[in-house]
């Protein structure tokens, strides 16, 4: 096999320069550290890895301070963290937290993320845990570096540490500030050689303690995201942009029918096409490799192959999906979570309300289809990918190819939105497999129809609800029963479930059971039952209806049902929906882990205040068939995820002639504890709310009994500029009973945002029209039919 490249210089530079100042490569050269020779187990991660670009690629040791922080001679610092940024600016937040603990100016730092041979394995992104969980070891190691530097300063000046001051990476003797030394002078270009402790990476710590919140100066500010300038001036190098010497292009040929079996390929149909290199095929996996990108696209379209349809239909059509789900025997059922005696309470209730909600499959449908480039040089495998879990991809690719893990590395680069288990996972294994087959670097990218049809989907849900009100309108019983089409829920980068493995015949003896989410609220309801089931579609493997995590995996579905239903109960009780919720929240003062009850009350009130909530029951009085086509209303919804609490209010205009819903205004009150970067958080909240608005109004995977039929932006519509609200108001709440406590935690902010929005819109439509929408998306035709049926 030809030896091609190390990481191309431009990518090395990009990895560094998009983040700031001096090139790490230069630093390593001038410091002489590139040629330092020590045993693999003893060397510090980033330094060692760069000196071994040809591989193998041992894991950077998280118990070495040098793996996390490098101080340069010019008194700047580079942080190496094992996370990735899906576009929320977490890299900026990491720099803020670490700069603060290290006592260095934010703009004197850079941050390198997520490349497996140079950054410690913090798992990449997922679960909105970057700040909540991984932020802690980052803060602690930075605090430890500061401690070590102070020790060095103390030795240099011969004065005890408590007589030293440190600010902006300069240590001074308090009694004589002319005696000063910079971090760069103390250690620039050299190693700390300081061991850390901790049973796992999240527990990594040195001796030093982190600062109390009151002493954090950069945390809580809003430095602009460092990654944005390159993304608007065109200089950003993305994972799609990787170009390697000798690189060729591949495109997949997907089965034309779900569950189809490849019978034969007629290679002569493409052999004479320009640039043709090879058809790679194993099992039902087929790809065409050509010299140039457009050649690979043309050839993949031209390739003649015959496929056999499966004997039985792989799934019902999307029109019949919910009927199918209701009628099928669950593959698993949870043990119902029961409080009190819901059956007795329902039997004795003055009024019983019942409703059923439906959520179709919805996809990731990234703006840029899945892609990866793999380089098989030197008997190693380097994958350039935007996958948010680069470390998992490394492990998955190694297992898939049967290579030792330390022969594989993943260089993480920016890409289109990575909100969960995207097809980037699949493309990584495909690129690596093809690169090994061809013996040259291979870039593979999915086409739009592949991405939209075959990307992982958020599972479809049906949720049955019953509620009991007593004669005074108090909620005495609540029965929630959710069913999700979530069988064989895909994990991340699993070598036996990535799509290429499935198509090559890999079958897990026991597919993942899957799950259905339950409501997350702090309502006090004396009798309740929460039950969930999972059902399976007929085709379990090689199906385009693959289920996996999409942002908060199932929260939008379950919260749509539960928070809509709370509104139905409020309406039945003829009580204002805000007052109804506040009563349920304030009915107890116990049971308040993490002060979630107190914080729930605070966010609900904050949202209502920011909106200017007018207290009255829904629906608003309107004249049916009267003058005016535009009906307006407002709806509230609230939930939490982990410790982050969110309340949202939507104000809608519903056009009764067309059924069109425009969400004119959105309000969000959000409490994620200590906020690292308020402006970046606000942008994340805006985007997250609008993502769920897209799911509320537009998104639905459609399929007949053979294949997915929503395959591009016409058949699979998404939110557009035309839908953007006129106003978005965001209130960042600190509802902690002791808001100034020095140990105020930082919770994961992102995914909680996506949960309540759909119900807020549904509740607003009800307020405006008196019509309850229980199935998303609220496309014009469906809304119009509902309005007509109700005589609105």
């Amino acid at each position: 096999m030809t030896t091609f490249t190390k990481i191309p210089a431009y990518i090395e530079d990009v990895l560094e320069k998009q983040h700031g100042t001096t090139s790490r490569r230069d630093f390593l050269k001038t410091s002489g550290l590139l040629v330092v020779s020590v045993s693999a187990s003893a060397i510090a991660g980033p330094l060692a890895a760069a000196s071994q670009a040809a591989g193998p690629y041992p894991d950077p040791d998280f118990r070495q301070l040098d793996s996390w922080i490098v101080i340069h001679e010019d008194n700047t610092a580079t942080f190496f963290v094992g996370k990735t940024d899906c576009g929320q600016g977490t890299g900026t937040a990491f720099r803020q937290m670490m700069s603060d603990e290290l006592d260095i100016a934010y703009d004197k730092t850079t941050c390198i993320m997520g490349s497996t041979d140079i950054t410690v394995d913090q798992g990449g992104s997922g679960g909105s845990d970057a700040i909540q969980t991984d932020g802690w070891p980052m803060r602690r190691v930075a605090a430890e570096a500061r401690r070590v530097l102070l020790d060095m300063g103390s030795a240099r000046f011969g004065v005890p540490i408590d007589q030293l001051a440190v600010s902006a990476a300069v240590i001074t003797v308090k009694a004589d500030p002319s005696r000063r030394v910079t971090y760069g002078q103390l250690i620039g270009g050299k190693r700390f050689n300081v061991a850390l402790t901790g049973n796992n990476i999240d527990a990594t710590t040195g001796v030093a303690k982190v600062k109390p919140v009151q002493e954090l100066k950069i945390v809580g500010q809003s430095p602009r995201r460092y990654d944005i300038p390159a993304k608007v001036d065109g200089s950003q190098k993305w994972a799609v942009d990787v170009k390697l010497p000798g690189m060729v292009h591949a495109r997949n040929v997907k089965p034309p029918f779900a569950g189809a079996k490849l019978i034969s390929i007629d290679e002569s149909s493409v052999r004479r096409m320009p640039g043709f290199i090879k058809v790679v095929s194993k099992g039902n996996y087929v790809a065409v490799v050509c010299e140039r990108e457009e050649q690979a696209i043309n050839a993949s379209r031209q390739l003649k192959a015959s496929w056999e349809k499966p004997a039985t239909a792989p799934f019902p059509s999307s029109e019949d999906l919910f009927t199918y789900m209701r009628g099928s025997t669950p593959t698993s059922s949870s043990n119902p979570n029961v409080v009190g005696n819901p059956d007795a309470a329902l039997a004795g209730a003055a009024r019983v309300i019942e409703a059923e909600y439906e959520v179709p499959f919805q996809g990731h449908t990234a703006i840029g289809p899945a892609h990866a480039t793999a380089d098989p040089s030197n008997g190693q495998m380097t994958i350039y990918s935007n996958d948010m879990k680069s470390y998992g991809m490394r492990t998955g690719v190694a297992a898939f190819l049967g290579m030792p893990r330390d022969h594989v590395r993943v260089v993480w680069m920016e890409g289109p939105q990575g909100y969960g288990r995207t097809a980037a996972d699949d493309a990584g294994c495909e690129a690596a497999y093809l690169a090994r087959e061809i013996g040259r670097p291979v870039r593979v990218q999915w086409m739009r129809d592949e991405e939209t049809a075959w990307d992982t989907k958020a599972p479809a849900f049906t949720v049955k609800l019953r509620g009991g009100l007593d004669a005074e309108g108090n909620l005495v019983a609540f029965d929630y029963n959710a069913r999700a089409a979530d069988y064989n829920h895909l994990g991340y980068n699993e070598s036996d479930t990535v799509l290429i493995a499935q198509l090559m015949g890999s079958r897990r003896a026991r597919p993942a059971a899957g799950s259905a989410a339950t409501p997350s609220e702090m309502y006090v309801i004396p009798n309740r039952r929460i039950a969930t089931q999972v059902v399976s579609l007929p085709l379990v493997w090689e199906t385009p209806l693959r289920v996996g995590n999409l942002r908060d995996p199932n929260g939008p579905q379950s919260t749509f049902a539960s928070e809509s239903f709370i509104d139905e109960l409020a309406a039945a009780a003829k009580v204002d929906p805000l007052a109804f919720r506040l009563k349920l929240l304030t009915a107890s003062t116990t049971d308040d882990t993490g002060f979630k009850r107190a914080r729930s009350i605070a966010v609900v009130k904050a949202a209502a205040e920011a909106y200017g909530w007018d207290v009255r029951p829904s629906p608003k009085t309107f004249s049916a068939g009267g003058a005016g086509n535009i009906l307006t209303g407002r709806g509230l919804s609230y939930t939490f995820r982990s410790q982050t609490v969110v309340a949202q209010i939507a104000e809608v205009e519903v056009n009764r002639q067309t059924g069109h819903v425009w969400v004119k205004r959105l309000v969000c009150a959000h409490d994620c504890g200590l906020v690292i970067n308020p402006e970046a958080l606000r942008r994340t909240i805006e985007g997250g709310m609008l993502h769920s608005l897209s799911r509320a109004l537009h998104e639905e995977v459609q399929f007949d009994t053979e294949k997915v039929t929503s395959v591009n932006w016409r058949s699979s519509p998404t939110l557009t500029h035309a839908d953007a609200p006129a106003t978005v108001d965001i209130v960042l709440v600190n509802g902690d009973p002791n808001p100034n406590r020095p140990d105020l935690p930082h919770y994961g902010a992102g995914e909680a945002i996506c949960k309540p929005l759909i119900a807020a819109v549904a509740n607003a439509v009800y307020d405006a029209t008196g019509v309850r929408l229980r199935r998303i998306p609220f496309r014009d035709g469906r809304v119009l039919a509902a309005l007509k049926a109700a005589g609105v």
Partner: protein
Amino acid sequence: MSTITLKVNGATHTVDVEPLTPLLYVLRNDLGLQGPRFGCGLGQCGACTVIINGVATRSCITPTSAVKDEITTLEGIAKDGKLHPLQQAWIDEQVPQCGFCQNGQIMTAKALLDRNPHPTDAQIRQGMAGTLCRCMTYYRIQAAIKRAAQVVA
């Protein structure tokens, strides 16, 4: 293959490609201009947008041989080392989430403002409606366009 001459961002290039090759691949792979990106290849999303003759053009469905006029890409709208007012507004408003779509957003907005320096809210919505963002940064993009419109004026 055939030899085609293209003028891009003030420079002239000659490439040897199949004439029907979509311009997008020539810009990205032959000329190293990677501001425009592949999103759909169908003219439906705008990620590949460049400006030709003042028109926001989807390079994924534009045959290279059909291009006679100068092409401007995202890399070519800054002047004399100064960002275009839209680019600056994008930074000031902190518009992008992942940023992958923003080439199309900025280039479509530029063509819009070049033609109509003071668009109304409705004109912005309408003019931008075909340029998709899956991180749903629409609200912030519209704010940035309004901000830039004040400067461009």
